């Protein structure tokens, strides 16, 4: 990913990196390669520790025609900066389409580092509620680079046609901590974008549909695999890579196709995207539903979102829990 970050900077000189320690490699080492390139160093904008200041600063850079990529130590940094993020989200709208704000925020999210607290929080429920902000969430390790490249491309902002509503606001790319801590022993093509939309069917089947994202995606795929091997049950697995805005028409179509739905995600069960999906399907797929919509989240009590480091392993659904849910809806 560090090589990809450097490549992205070389390809478009409007891109710059913003973050507290980007000039020394960045918290996750994402700017390590770029920091060694003398040509790129002027666009590595190491910045003081601020709350909302950094986020507003990135917005200002974008207003001046740059394409800032902000490397954040944690998705919770965006919660600290919520006033500025809200301002960036509404700016294209507020300006009547006069201005784009093509900023990409890249932030680790959810459990995985074993630190607990803010460093284990799943921020997507709050972030997706901010108007005008696009929220993507990478899933599998082998897709991380594709996600980063696709997210850094702001299509539709290169036209001068400001009379239409094609303006672009900020985008957040969440990297699940449990995915990025794994060693990546695969050869990747740095030039490849994600060969599909972020929200897409990753595995096909007709008995049930599993919606999953982030840290829950790999367990969901493993569960689908186990169900196929042990019981001959083939299920659809949908990666929800774009959490805001939701492609509601596509999701409803996928839900209605099987009528048996499992939603799997890390973090708290209440008040999040999982609940939003369940409500969406209850609204628009009700005549196709043949079982209750099951949500599989962490094993912690439903209302407990706060985690100590040693509890993090219980904050994401396991493949077994997801497989049990699939079996339940299929035999309902």
């Amino acid at each position, binding site marked *: 990913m560090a090589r990809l970050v450097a490549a992205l900077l070389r390809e478009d000189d409007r891109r710059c990196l913003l973050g507290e320690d980007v000039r020394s490699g960045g918290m996750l080492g994402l700017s390590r390669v770029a920091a060694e390139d003398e040509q790129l160093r002027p666009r590595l904008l190491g910045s003081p520790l601020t709350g909302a200041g950094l986020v507003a600063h990135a917005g200002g850079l974008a207003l001046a025609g740059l394409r800032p990529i902000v490397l954040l130590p944690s998705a919770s940094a965006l919660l600290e900066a919520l*006033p500025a993020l809200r301002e960036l989200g509404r700016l294209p709208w507020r300006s009547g389409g006069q201005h784009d704000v093509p900023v990409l925020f890249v932030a680790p999210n959810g459990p995985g580092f074993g630190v607990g607290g803010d460093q284990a929080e799943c921020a997507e429920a709050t972030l997706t509620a901010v108007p005008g902000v696009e929220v993507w969430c990478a899933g599998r390790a082998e897709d991380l680079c594709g996600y980063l490249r696709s997210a850094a491309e702001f299509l539709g902002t290169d036209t001068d046609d400001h009379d239409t509503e094609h303006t672009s606001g900020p985008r957040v790319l969440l990297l699940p901590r449990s995915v990025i801590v794994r060693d990546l022993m695969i050869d990747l093509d740095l030039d490849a974008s994600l060969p599909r939309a972020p929200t897409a069917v990753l595995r096909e089947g007709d008995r049930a549909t599993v919606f999953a994202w982030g840290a829950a995606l790999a367990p969901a795929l493993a569960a689908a695999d186990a169900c196929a091997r042990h019981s001959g049950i083939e299920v659809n697995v949908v990666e929800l890579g774009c959490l805001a805005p939701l492609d509601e028409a596509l999701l409803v179509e996928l839900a209605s196709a099987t009528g048996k739905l499992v939603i799997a995600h890390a973090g708290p069960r209440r008040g999040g995207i999982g609940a939003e999906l369940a409500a969406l399907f209850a609204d628009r797929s009700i005549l196709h539903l043949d079982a209750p919509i099951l949500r599989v989240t962490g094993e912690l009590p439903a209302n407990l979102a706060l985690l100590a480091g040693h509890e993090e392993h219980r904050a994401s659904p396991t493949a077994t829990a997801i497989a049990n849910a699939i079996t339940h809806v299929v035999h309902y």
Partner: protein
Amino acid sequence: MQATPWEPEGVEALLDSNGALVDPSAVSGIDLRSYYKKMVAARVLDHKLRRLELPMWASSAGEEAVSVAIGDSVAANDWVFVGNRDAAIGLIRGMPLTELARELLRSPSAPTRGRALPGSISSSAHKIMGACEALGASLGLAAGHAHGQALAGDGAGATLVVFGEGLTTTGMFHESISMAMAHDVPLVFVCKSQLWPDGAPPEAGLLGDSVADRARAAGMWTRRSDGADPLGVKRSIAAALHRAHDGAGPSLVEVVVTSITRDPPAERDPIERMRRLLDSRGEWTQTFQDVSEAEINGQLEKAFEQAQTDGGPA
């Protein structure tokens, strides 16, 4: 200068309370009559807006020195980030009056389609960025914008952000100063500080009356000017912009303004003070005053009428 509680402390004066120039050579390049007409135009716009009884609108009568100095001093490629009492900047910067009226009436046919905050204006064509809702967000945006201008290299402009002293107790004010200093950006902060004749009340939390002193403590170049002295304000803001264009980094100009709505002594009114100067030079007559007012008044009447017929308040 007579010492009344209404006179701010620690300001650089160019035009004293009797309308006498402390340093006549400092205004050699300025057409004083035309500058005075701009001040009058800004006041007439404020009166016009008052009569419209727009929701959530706040008067900026008494603050004309700031708007006119900014509108008059910025270079063609400088951007101005405004608040909700800075409509006169659009006027002085040459926004077509009908467009300005549509913005202020928040009409669907305005550049912002009626989405601007009450009292705020925005125009991409005239490089004016509208006000933000989040406290102080425009300061952070302006710092980033100035940084972007600097990265774009030679020929790109500076960025100026204007705000009230109330925002200087927010985190964003201090964060923006920190960001601007860290990246040495071509940014001019212009703070309009309301004058409190008896000192600011403790609940204002202003950490001492001088915002300029606080910015200077952060290592920033600052000036403190008297808003009743239009030529002094013009000199400070022009100097700050000059530094920004020269690559000398960020600066803060604090202008101590007196709201006319609080009925201060006549010499606290920047227009009256400048009138006294013109009068002493034999360049002011009542006819000149009447014609100046009528001219802009007529133009504004026409523009607002036009804006109201083709859209009306959103």
